[in-house]
């Protein structure tokens, strides 16, 4: 990084409201034994998952119907997905598969078969975009070895109740695992490396557990972005540029991030040179960053081993870090209510990245701290602050709780239900939403009036449904009806029944 950029970076951090008060003074060590137990941890997410019996914690499964499709090398996984019905299990035998798999159905299990250490390999050859794309609810993706894709390894768009586990994702594009706009999901036991943005990236999602993953040699290890109720626990995150991140990215349609627990992870030696795509948010991360919280609220950093990160162990900051992005007047920039509980921290800040070094130089320091709050939040808390070398924590108070152990998981005790069909009158929606484009009740539009159809079919909705699927020309003075076979049988029949009962 050139000198001008270093200075600019320092100026940005300072201009962003860095809190200098008391930064040079460390709290005195007070030895005491608590006589009263501390309060229990509370959050909106904790209330949502409270009371779940231990046996149901993270017990999410993809429902299966007994349908099994086996894919062998030389066959296409996508053909199997196309043939599958909801509830199907697609088993992929070891071998090399060169394709993009997209799952636009609910309750599909895509599962690799592992034989004596051999996985099915999805090979992108540096040409294909994403390995697995899903949009359905209740999708499981497991036991795959994904490599050399240009985009993402596994990418979700709005699927709820997802499980992404036991995959190897190696040298694959932008994000290794990227569920987006989903609620209730598990990302566990994946081994992810060589990713030029985030290895595991939770984008605009709710109620997600990221647990027991190994993430290394990437720019960002694990990132929680514009999401709520996320548990990041027991992951081994090392040799990335930054280890674990919780961000608000400005300019997204869902503008909040909060209630994120970063707990019991190994966050070690995240000193990799930053090789992010120019312009990306993570291109701003200084090498040697352990935990980085930008603008995300109610983040608890608890019980992690944070060791050997050469710039800073834990950073709380605002958008001043992201100097290359446009501001979003609707995004609140501060990392409100930071909570720091009993992390094991050693050997951080030994060789700060140039941007951090310039920042430290302004305070006549050369070694990065264990913990920095560049904003100087006045609503933060920390336990045993005297154990750490800190900057900007002068207004932090002692936390009134000692652990978040009462939250075993932020996944929900029960899967997110499909919207209750009792509340939804499919026939009404299809009639007004589609049929009414051509059929008005009493007047001629493109097709004959609904009244005329009612007189013809009376008690025969099946007749309407059948005709609508395969219309034949009946009326010389009307244009041909386009077939409505795109609607499934149930919806078509419901619309026909509704049509026979319309009265205006």
């Amino acid at each position, binding site marked *: 990084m050139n000198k001008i950029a270093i200075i600019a970076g320092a100026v940005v951090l300072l201009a962003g409201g860095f809190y200098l008060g008391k930064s040079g003074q460390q709290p005195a060590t007070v030895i005491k034994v608590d006589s009263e137990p501390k309060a229990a941890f509370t959050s909106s997410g904790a209330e949502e998952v409270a009371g779940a019996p231990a046996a149901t914690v993270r017990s999410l499964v993809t429902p299966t119907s007994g349908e099994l499709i086996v894919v062998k090398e030389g066959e296409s996984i996508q053909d199997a997905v196309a043939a599958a019905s909801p509830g199907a299990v697609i088993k992929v035998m070891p071998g090399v598969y060169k394709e*993009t798999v*997209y799952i*636009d159905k609910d309750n599909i299990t895509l599962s690799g078969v592992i034989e004596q250490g051999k996985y099915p390999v999805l090979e992108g050859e540096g040409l294909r*975009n*994403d390995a697995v*794309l899903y*949009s*359905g*609810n209740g999708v499981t993706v497991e036991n795959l070895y994904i490599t050399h894709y*240009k*985009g*993402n390894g596994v*990418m*979700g*768009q*709005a*699927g709820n109740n997802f499980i992404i586990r036991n995959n190897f994702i190696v040298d694959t*594009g*932008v*994000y290794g695992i*990227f569920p987006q*706009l*989903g*609620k209730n999901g598990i990302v566990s036991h994946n081994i992810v490396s060589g990713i030029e943005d985030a290895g595991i990236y939770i984008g605009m999602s*709710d109620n997600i557990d990221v647990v027991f993953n190994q993430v290394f040699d990437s720019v960002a290890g694990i990132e929680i972005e514009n999401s709520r109720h996320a548990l990041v626990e027991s992951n081994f995150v090392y040799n990335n540029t930054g280890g674990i991140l919780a961000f608000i*990215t400005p*300019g*997204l*349609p*869902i503008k909040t991030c909060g209630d994120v627990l970063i707990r019991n992870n190994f966050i070690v030696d995240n000193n990799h040179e930053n090789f992010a*795509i*120019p*312009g*990306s*948010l993570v291109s701003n991360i200084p090498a040697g960053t352990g935990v980085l919280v930008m603008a995300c609220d109610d983040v608890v950093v608890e019980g992690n081993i944070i060791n050997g990160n050469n710039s800073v162990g834990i950073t709380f900051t605002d958008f001043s870090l992201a100097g*290359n*992005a*446009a*501001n*979003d*007047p609707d995004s609140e920039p501060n990392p409100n209510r930071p909570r720091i509980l009993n992390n094991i921290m050693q050997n951080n800040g030994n060789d700060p990245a140039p941007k951090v070094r310039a920042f430290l130089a302004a305070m006549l320091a050369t070694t990065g701290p264990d913990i920095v709050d560049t904003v100087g939040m006045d609503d933060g808390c920390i336990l045993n602050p005297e154990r750490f070398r800190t900057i900007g924590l002068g207004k932090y108070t002692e936390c009134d709780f000692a652990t978040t152990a009462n939250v075993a998981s932020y996944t929900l005790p029960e899967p997110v239900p499909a*919207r209750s069909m009792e509340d*939804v009158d*499919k026939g*009404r*929606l*299809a*009639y*007004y*939403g*589609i049929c*009414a*484009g*051509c059929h*008005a*009740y009493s007047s001629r539009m493109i097709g004959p009036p609904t009244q005329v159809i009612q007189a013809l079919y009376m008690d025969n909705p099946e007749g309407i449904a059948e005709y609508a699927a395969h219309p034949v020309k009946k009326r010389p003075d009307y244009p041909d009806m386009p077939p409505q076979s*795109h*609607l*499934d049988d149930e*919806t078509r029949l419901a619309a026909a029944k509704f049509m026979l009962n319309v009265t205006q």
Partner: protein
Amino acid sequence: MRRKLARTLFALLPVVPWLAFAAPAEIRLSGDCPPGFEFSAGQCKLRSLYQMYDSLENSGVGGLKTGLPAYRDGFSPQQIDLGRYLFFDPVLSGDGTVSCASCHNPDLGFSDGLGRSVGVSGQPMRRSAPSLWNVAFQQRFFWDARASSLEQQMQGPLYDENEMATSPEQLLRTLNGIPLYRELFRQAWPQDFRAADAVIRLDQVYTAIAAFQASLISLNSRYDQYAHGYADALTGPEKEGMNVFRSFVARCAECHTPPLFTNQQIAVIGTPDPEGMAFDPGASETLGEPTLRGGFKVPSLRNVALTAPYMHSGRFATLREAVAFYTGGRGHAVPPGEDLKIHWHIWEPKLSDEELDRLVDFLKTLTDESFKPVQPRWLPSGRQPVHNIIARTGETHQDGASNDE
């Protein structure tokens, strides 16, 4: 040239009244809701299969089976029908030469086929006319997001001296001077017209036009059939295009997010203005946020195949050119000396020619005009609709500034 003739013709109208198109002496506004709406307790309520689905945080963005964003509905059938007449009536403009439909022509995707729209002044203005399809779901209006409601938005073009160039006073004087309009407003707001001397109010004009605009629903494209579960609705190449569209290489869906194909945010992407035109700072002016310099509202892509040319000032003549912009490299078209905070999703995806072709194939599956409204053949003012006969200034050239006038 033809525009001048047309204006001359309309200037003559008052003295040669036999040229006017006679409206029936009596008109009943429709008591039926437009397609896509159910009549319920006096109001037209939107109905769509998308109402079967939820969305995360009720944001109205997601994937295939995702619920809709917040929307406007609940107008009466009469208000909507009255809005339809007003929308097509050139009497709303100061000199009677343009109507709303001149720039939002139903036969041109509710846009105008021009790179930069032309109002009463006859000169191309700064930006293109956005499509009105699905404006019921929009939270902010204008390319620079400076209006937050349809009612607020329409006052921009109505009173801009280069667009429709009327004034609130003239608008009310004109409408109140037409007995048929007073009768139609009475039908739409019977409570407000009990008194014999009741007159048309501006808020009623705005509400009626907003009611009509909010009825322009397009959610029945072949893409929608696929989204609701009919896998054969799209061809193989179109599905390939859909996967490029939502891939994290092209990243189109990150901002043009289903089901509306917009996330309704401001994005700085650095598309070029027509040659010779001053750089358009966009939302930084209106929102007072310097880092949004060059930022514009992400437009919906529904019916996008109908609304060439593309981008805020129409620089790209075809969809193919528009999609190719995104693989041209980050900031490649930013004028020298401009330091823009280009959006992080603008990168170098290195899309192949085939992928660009497939993207265009997919974008064409977003076309649906099945609820296109009927255009009135006569208007309460006695004027003839002008949006299809008025002298169109021809397609803009690549630079967007000159035309075939």
